[in-house]
């Protein structure tokens, strides 16, 4: 005979919201210290759901603290540190992708007004610190089965600053064992183009902004960021505007040569300046890509372009 609890559970499971049965929100976090020019691996145990229950991952969040010196007025660490994710055998990032390429910008400002996603200057005159915050809301929530880990590696460019302390958080929901496991899940995928700095002309290759998977990719958006590194002392590292309308112009074509951006256009006319993103819904078939050509790139700036989407994978 069923107990009262079992009958109550059955009532919810047979009701209009079975997928919300005992679904509770959860934030898992850990921290990682990365020196200039080094890499690191986040503690995947701390970022794993503790009760061996299925977990829906909705967001990945980063808070990065970097010590600065008196010459630095602003700093956006999202361009200095790159992340590479994987879910078991399923690749999520095609290579190390700068953190600020995972998500659009929110409330961007370069001032020390203190509200910005990317730059916050903590003007403690004794120890100056800069904080950068990024939030990547996954294109579709990612279902993680019990025991599975969403692993992440990090690497940092040799920017010459002190150790960066990064707090990484996974925000999502864990579900009861009685919820049916889906047969197929949506797994995110990010492909980026990071041209070598110093050249005024660059073009992406067949390994960049590509869908290398055997299944179609549901593209959510493209992210466009410009990282500015000033001279050898790197006095400013931040997501930057480009100086004049003719700087860093790009055209974009698809695999068949069809125009996506027909004429050379300023970088931030293609990727909206406020959000650093161009959101569109498109299915990119297997093995196809976008070709980006850039000219008049200022030599102290690095272009970062990323393609974000999701695909179906069978569990």
């Amino acid at each position, binding site marked *: 005979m069923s107990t009262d609890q079992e009958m109550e559970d059955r009532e919810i499971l047979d009701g209009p919201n079975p997928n919300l049965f005992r*679904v*509770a929100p959860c934030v898992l976090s850990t921290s990682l210290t990365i020196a200039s020019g080094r890499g690191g691996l986040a503690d995947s145990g701390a970022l794993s759901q503790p009760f061996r229950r299925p977990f829906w991952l909705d967001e990945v969040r980063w808070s990065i603290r970097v010590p600065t010196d008196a010459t630095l007025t602003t700093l956006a660490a999202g361009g200095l540190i790159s992340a590479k994710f994987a879910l078991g055998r399923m690749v999520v990032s095609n290579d190390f992708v700068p953190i600020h390429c995972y998500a659009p910008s*929110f409330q961007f400002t370069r001032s020390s007004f203190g509200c910005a996603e990317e730059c*916050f200057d903590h003007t403690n005159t004794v120890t100056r610190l800069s904080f950068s*915050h990024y*939030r990547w809301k996954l294109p579709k929530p990612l279902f993680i089965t019990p025991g599975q880990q969403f692993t992440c590696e990090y690497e940092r460019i040799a920017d010459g600053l002190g150790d960066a302390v990064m*707090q990484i958080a996974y925000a999502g929901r864990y579900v009861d064992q009685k919820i049916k496991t889906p047969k197929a899940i949506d797994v995110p995928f990010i492909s980026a183009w990071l041209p070598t700095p110093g050249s005024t002309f660059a073009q992406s290759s067949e390994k960049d902004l590509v869908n290398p998977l055997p299944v179609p990719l549901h593209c959510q958006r493209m992210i466009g960021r410009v990282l500015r590194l000033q001279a050898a002392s790197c006095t400013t590292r931040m997501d930057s505007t480009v100086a004049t309308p003719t700087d860093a112009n790009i055209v974009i074509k698809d695999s068949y040569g069809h125009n996506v951006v027909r004429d050379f256009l300023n970088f931030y006319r293609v990727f909206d300046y406020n959000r650093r993103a161009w959101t569109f819904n498109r299915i990119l078939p297997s093995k196809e890509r976008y070709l980006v050509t850039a000219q008049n790139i200022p030599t102290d700036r690095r272009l970062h372009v990323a393609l974000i989407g999701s695909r179906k994978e069978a569990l």
Partner: protein
Amino acid sequence: MTMPQGTVPLELSTPIHLTATTSLASNTTGGVNTVALKNPMGGAMEVHEIKFQVTGPLSQTNANVFGGIIAAKLDIGSHPLTNGYVPIWSLGRSLGLGAENLIRNVNNAISEFSWRLARPLYVPADAVITPTFQHRGLITNSLSVRVSYVGRSFNRRGPLPQKVYIPYASAYVSKNFSIDSADTDESTELELINPFDSPLFIQRFTGRCQFYWNDGSANNYATDSQMGSIVSGGQLMTVRMVDSNGRPIIRNFTVFYTAFPQPTRSWELDGKAVMDPQSYYRVFTRKSAPTAALNIPATTQIFVGCVGWREIGTGEMK
């Protein structure tokens, strides 16, 4: 477009905006003229968004941000929409940190906050959402508060919806931490609570950190902790959260603005998680001392809000 269950077809409605104001002295409570917030057409309506605008003094070169100073208690009939007084900046996500910190006429500051309801709130004919406001003190100045309801009015008395979605918000406000000290605090079972017999669908958690300058002069002010290069209280705070069964919600102590993302001051769940009936969340707060003492007359305080909705039948709407 598929309409959420319980709403009236679009062609039977017109948009409506209702507003009322009040002025509050420090450490007082007060209501507004609720007649101004009733549907003047006499029919039922739906409320989609509740907006707040607070006007007060501009202190020195730092605008006040009043979201932590003014709290609101909202009721509709016998149904509470808030767990007592909830700070108005704990109800919604930040839609524009700049808009929360506006300067007007050199001497006045304006803060604007908005609570976009996850589901439209059906307000029967002749009913009204009754707001009561509290000036929590901290600054001695009076503040002017405007509340506005945005929604649609039904042109005729159409069929009643089968379900009504009642929003509900609760909040935990920590104690004031001295800027230079390390300290801890925790919430009680009465603060982040679902007191009802039905589950609460969680729309979001909000996280705000208030910086309060108190040098004993008339220039005291309160602001969002990350305004104007002031010491970042949100970076010195870490929090963890558990539910009433001890399940971890925020498992490890996490930097406040990582747990509640800095750009939006909120953790959006969009109803994909529930709070069990008759349950609560407990927040544990840890404040670290800065690496070097700042020696300023200031304190910092965190606000954690839990905002969601529950479903009731139309017959219970009294």
